[in-house]
């Protein structure tokens, strides 16, 4: 093991980490928004909405992220959607956008299923009790069912965040200078196949471990307040 390359190349790792975090944060954000939308569609009584959401979710879950990424990356320009280059952005902005869009669309399907199962795991009696008190269904959802569903959802949602951080490494194949891409660059420049990957792995682990510990803390706070 020889980490002599670090003083010269550490900036590449830090830069890469920045892009990894950037992609992950936006993918989580849009993934949740899409997930809420699709889960409501799945639970909706309107057949068309339900059908669209089901097809979408099954397609995303049944195809590899890598394929989805390529489809978005090569497909967006074909559809006439071209993002401009932005100089200040450093790494290629259109590439980053394609990465974020693909990751978000992918995550949205998984989050939708997580939310749906969370809502369905709340006892039916809760909705009935709320309705029997004169609440409309959206009011009952908001004040009674969702707060309880969120507690059931959190652990699985935490896993999804961690998965997004790890899977963002796939976006290196479309040339986004995120952590994995830059680790590869260092590997090529230093002719050291092993050590740069160790550094990358360590950084990924620190990121995922931080996220999961924070979520654990949050979960515990929620369950404490539940017991009074």
């Amino acid at each position, binding site marked *: 093991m020889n980490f002599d390359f670090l003083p010269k190349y550490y900036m590449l790792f830090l830069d890469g980490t920045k892009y990894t975090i950037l992609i992950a944060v936006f993918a989580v954000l849009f993934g949740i928004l899409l997930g809420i939308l699709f889960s409501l569609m799945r639970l909706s009584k309107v057949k068309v909405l339900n059908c669209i959401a089901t097809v979408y979710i099954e397609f995303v879950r049944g195809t590899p992220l890598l394929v989805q990424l390529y489809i978005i990356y090569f497909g967006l320009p074909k559809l006439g959607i071209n993002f401009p280059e932005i100089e200040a952005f450093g790494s290629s902005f259109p590439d980053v956008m394609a990465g974020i869009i693909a990751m978000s669309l992918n995550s949205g399907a998984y989050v939708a299923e997580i939310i749906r199962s969370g809502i369905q795991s709340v006892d039916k*009696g809760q909705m009935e009790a709320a*309705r*029997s*008190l*004169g609440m*409309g269904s959206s009011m009952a959802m908001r004040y009674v069912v969702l707060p309880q569903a969120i507690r059931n959802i959190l652990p699985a949602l935490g896993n999804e965040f961690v998965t997004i951080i790890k899977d963002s490494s796939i976006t290196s194949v479309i040339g986004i200078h995120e952590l994995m891409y830059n680790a590869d660059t260092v590997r090529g420049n230093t002719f050291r196949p092993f050590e740069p990957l160790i550094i990358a792995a360590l950084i990924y682990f620190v990121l995922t471990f931080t996220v999961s510990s924070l979520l654990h803390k949050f979960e515990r706070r929620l369950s404490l307040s*539940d017991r009074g």
Partner: protein
Amino acid sequence: MIEVKNLNKDYGNLSVLKDINVNIEKGEVVVIIGPSGAGKSTFLRCLNLLETPTSGEIIFEGKNVTKKGTDINKIREKMGMVFQQFNLFPNMKVMDNITLAPIKVKGQDENSAKETAHRLLKKIGLEDKSDAYPNQLSGGQKQRIAIARALAMSPDVMLFDEPTSALDPEMVGEVLNVMKELAGEGMTMVVVTHEMGFAREVGSRILFMDDGKIVEEGKPKDIFSNPKNPRTKDFLSKVLSNDF
């Protein structure tokens, strides 16, 4: 107050309620008894549309509950319901369980909602539990809170769906006492129960249901001491002989 006309409820091919006709007057305590699967709970749940009737009409205080376009939420505000499984909101303190609907649905301000809640908690003998969470309470306490929660909306009628069936035997009494007190105050009540003592003592009218039909109805003393229908006789002889 509640008028039920030709009420039918089917699940697919299974007919659970068959042509039910009942009139419930203000101040009455109607107790529905009968074997499991007779459709008692389904009937009760049809009254506030937790189950959608297949056909028939339910008129509550002059409004047709079953007609499309009726604001069912407005009607449910006036029909309190108590469930077998309590269905308290486990993530909320007792106080919030009781005040949630008055504040969100009726738009009461927090202070007056809390005042009402305190008064109700006092009435059911649980004034010290307002800051407790439901899972810190016994079954009997939970069910009394559930009654208070329904009462907080100041309903005109209270529906009880086997309120004591999920309770340990020693806790049945405390819940029945609250219900008895409520009946004494003139609350209109529809109660599905297996507590024959309660039916006889508190009920102003008994409905005996079997196989989706109201087989016999009448005053408690008539039904219990002199049942006419053979099914009623059979049921009562079995149930009452359990009191060794």
